[in-house]
């Protein structure tokens, strides 16, 4: 029976020869990602239910990220609970502050993501890891507790939508613009309960970092997972990053696999996009919104806080000054160090930006860049819901790092192509 890559990975994980969309399965989990917001609750549940154990201390990856360094007493208490548990359970891959980073940037960078595997995490953007030909999905605290204790979880095998990304991205247009265009076409529930499978020639030229920006935002279309097939770019990244060098299994969709629908995009025609408040599906080309005054630019997050993003921003900022508050958040300590070594911090400092420690921070309205009422922020993050980055009366505009950087220089929404 013909299967999609998502079906093949789930078939392997559930010990079956084949599975098909709609089927309920029990899958073995290869990696469980734990952070500071959803994990402490899962730990408390396990203790309360008398099943305080971990299925495999080597397969759980822990990093505080949302509110780290602790932003207040309550979040410090969350960190304390996470820390005590990780130490007590002798979790092998526990990234403490100094090594901790935004989870979805950290796990691939530290080599925890392998093709063909099933990864779950207590965070909706866990779908990021699908860029590595893996199945990964976000879960809540109860599912997390069950995964931690048993290493298994129930799933309904999702139907898949195929997104064919044709053509070549024009100068100044990035994978962020592509995913905003995709979500805007299908809507924030356009892929509800489904897998978003991305294929096509435009992906060939994209780095793993750029691909992760695409799968990261699959949840913004309601998807269960986003997935991109394996190729030489994936192979090279894994050779440089994988912790465990043992062979991994590469799955690919059969040519005659079934899709619930197919969407084609000519990437050559995509412009820099900006998602207007208050949905990621409200994106318009920059030509339709340029000139709107902004109060803050935020460059960071699991969507666009990687080294490649910071390089693009530094290139635009070089020799210039920003007109609005500009906050730069390298997503992991390794990215932070790399940016420093490459002289990017010097450029950011001279441009008048502030550089933060790795954290999810203001992306979700936590801290380090909260918006006041009436303020507008151009942000490289993934959500622009009401109140997402602060006051319910503030507004978030989502865009690529290049568009955010160009807008920071002019203090208003600006076409980045003028600066590249």
């Amino acid at each position, binding site marked *: 029976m013909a299967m999609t890559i998502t079906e093949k990975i789930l078939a392997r994980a559930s010990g079956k020869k084949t599975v098909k969309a709609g089927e*309920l399965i029990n899958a073995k989990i290869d990696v469980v990602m734990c952070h500071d*917001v*959803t994990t*402490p*609750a899962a730990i*408390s*549940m*396990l203790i309360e*239910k008398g*099943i305080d154990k971990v299925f495999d201390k080597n397969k759980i990856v822990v990093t505080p990220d*949302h*509110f780290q360094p602790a*932003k*207040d007493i*309550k*979040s410090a208490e*969350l960190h304390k609970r996470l820390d005590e548990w990780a130490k007590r359970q002798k979790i092998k891959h526990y990234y403490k502050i100094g090594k901790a980073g935004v989870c979805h940037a950290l796990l691939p960078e530290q080599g925890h993501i392998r093709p063909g595997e099933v990864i779950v995490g*207590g*965070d*909706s953007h*866990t779908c990021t890891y699908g860029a590595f030909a893996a199945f990964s999905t*976000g*879960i*809540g*605290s*109860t*599912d997390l*507790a*069950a995964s931690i*204790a*048993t290493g298994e979880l*129930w799933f309904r095998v999702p139907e898949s939508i195929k997104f064919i990304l044709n053509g070549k991205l024009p100068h100044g247009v990035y994978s962020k613009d592509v995913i905003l265009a995709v979500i805007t076409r299908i809507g*924030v*529930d356009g892929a*509800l*309960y489904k897998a978003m499978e991305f294929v096509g020639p435009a992906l060939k030229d994209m780095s793993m970092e750029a691909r992760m920006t695409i799968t990261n935002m699959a*949840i913004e279309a*309601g*998807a*269960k997972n986003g997935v991109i097939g394996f190729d030489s770019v994936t192979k090279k990244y894994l050779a440089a990053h994988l912790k465990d060098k043992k062979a991994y299994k590469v799955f690919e969709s059969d040519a005659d696999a079934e899709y619930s629908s197919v969407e084609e995009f000519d990437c050559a025609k995509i412009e820099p996009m900006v998602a207007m408040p208050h*949905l990621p599906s409200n994106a318009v080309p920059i030509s339709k919104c340029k000139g709107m005054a902004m109060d803050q630019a935020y460059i960071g997050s699991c969507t666009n806080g990687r080294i490649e993003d910071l390089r693009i921003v530094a290139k635009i900022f070089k020799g210039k000054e920003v007109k609005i508050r500009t906050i730069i958040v390298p997503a992991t300590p390794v990215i932070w160090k790399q940016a420093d070594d490459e002289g990017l911090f010097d450029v950011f400092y001279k441009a008048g930006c502030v550089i933060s420690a790795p954290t999810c921070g203001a992306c*979700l*309205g*936590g801290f380090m860049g909260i918006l006041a009422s009436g303020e507008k922020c151009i942000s490289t993050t993934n*959500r622009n*819901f*009401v*109140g*997402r980055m602060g006051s*319910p009366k503030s507004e978030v505009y989502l865009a690529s790092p290049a568009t955010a950087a160009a807008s920071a220089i002019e203090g208003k929404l600006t076409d980045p192509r003028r600066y590249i």
Partner: protein
Amino acid sequence: MSKAHVYKRDHINTDEIIPARYLNTDNEQELARHCMEDLDAGFVKKLNKGDVIVAGDDFGCGSSREHAVWAIRGAGVATVIARTFARIFYRNAIDCGFYLIESKDAIERIADGDEVQIDYDKGIIEDKTNGQRIEFRPLPDFALEIIKDGGLLEHIKKRKS
């Protein structure tokens, strides 16, 4: 009898249900005080225990924070009736034993403030204010089993023993 709090909106998201500024705790009663705060600041005040929320498509989209379900449950909401639910919210609710109702037309047929009575087994919502009977398909068997056991963790414990 339950009162219906109707929000004629799609994509009511987790940031509206429980803003991230309150995620520094996982205490259900604390979270409950801020339930729906960024959508309707007066929600908690007007809510009586056992009331229901009625909404459009994609209820609970966004974050994986189960805090959204806890805030709603903690505030005393008996169930959420929506045209569709976002995937993670739906899972989270089942996992913690909280019943959800998918109904294509409840949002059209129930007015804000109507008194409703729900028969979960038969799949019927009776709107006592306008006399309408709205049928819905009860949750699938596996979900009902989890809810009956008191949530996923109890379900797992029971299955293993």
